């Protein structure tokens, strides 16, 4: 029952063999697969985090570009407005100038017409008067002298007016 002898070394030998066998067939595969899974999950988590970060960056970049686009469009509209304003002012000015010129020209033409008319009326009137006078005085009147006299008269009357 209580026998202690050299066969104690059997168990040493056996346990070492068992240790080696279990290491090959149990601990290594199980620990290996657990480690592999841990690595895989860790990798996936890291990947997800990276993608999240990337997405965040992309988003902020898009937002920024959107903002700048808005600003740009605003600026473009403003510029267009300004340009339109300038053009508008320019056109109005030109129109005003043109209108003024036209009015001036019309005035000038009217003046000239009036003068012309006046002059022809004067001439006609002189002739009518001369004809009337020569009718009254007969043909004795010197045509040249009478005309001069009449012109003088008319000029006096005209200046009186």
């Amino acid at each position, binding site marked *: 029952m209580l026998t*202690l002898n050299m066969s104690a070394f059997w168990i040493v030998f056996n346990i070492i063999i068992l240790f080696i066998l279990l290491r090959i067939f149990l601990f290594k595969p199980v620990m290996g697969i657990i480690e592999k899974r841990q690595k895989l999950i860790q990798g996936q988590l890291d990947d997800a985090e990276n993608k999240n970060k990337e997405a965040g960056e992309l988003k902020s970049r898009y937002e920024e570009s959107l903002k700048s686009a808005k600003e740009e469009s605003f600026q473009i509209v403003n510029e267009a407005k300004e340009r339109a304003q300038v053009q508008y002012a320019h056109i109005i000015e030109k129109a005003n100038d043109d209108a003024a010129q036209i009015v001036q020209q019309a005035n000038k033409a009217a003046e000239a017409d009036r003068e012309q008319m006046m002059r022809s009326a004067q001439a006609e009137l002189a002739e009518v008067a001369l004809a009337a006078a020569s009718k009254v005085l007969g043909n004795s009147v010197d045509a040249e002298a009478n005309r001069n006299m009449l012109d003088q008269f008319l000029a006096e009357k005209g200046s009186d007016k």
Partner: protein
Amino acid sequence: MSIGEELTEKLAYKISFYIPLGDFKIPVPHSVVVTWGVMAFLVIVSIIFTRKMKIVPGKRQAFIEFCIEKLYNIFYDILGERGKRYIPYLLTVLLYLGISNMLGLFGIAPPTKDLNTTAGLALMSIILIQYAGIHQRGVGGWLKHFGHPIAMMAPMNILELIIRPLSLCMRLFGNILGAYIIMELVHIVAPAVVPLAAGAYFDIFDALLQAYVFCFLTSLFIQESIMDDD
């Protein structure tokens, strides 16, 4: 045959056969043959359970992973990062003792009821404990550690080199032998229902408890020999 004679025969130290080696014959005790059986069983079960391991585990693989991880963590909690290299050995011993101690359940004499088996295991434990100390501190640090915490304690610490394996060896041996004797007596006296209840305690609870205690104490001693002095 009286009960005493029957019991004595059951408890006798048996040599199963001899391995001839020239003039010399190596005796192979019964406990060694049983140990080979336990080893074969453990290896075959391991191979069955770890066949075709996948990242996404099936039920079989999940079960073995769960078991190994739980057992691993028991020792990891004691030994920590520094001592985790000794865990596979402790698990080997734990599995071997767990199966061996329970063999009484199947009417096979447990190899741990042979003093040679437990003595061999205790010898390995004390060598491993000292090796762990040397590996962690170097030979000088290991020698110096005998004078820890004060130089006066050196004789006690040296005595521990004998006391620790002796207590490990005798505790396991005594428990399993005692359980075996009681179970044999119960079988002789009341062969019907009583062995079932008694077997549940002696062959399952006590058997697993002793396997755990042996490995737990070994890991505790290893931890003590590798921890920092403060």
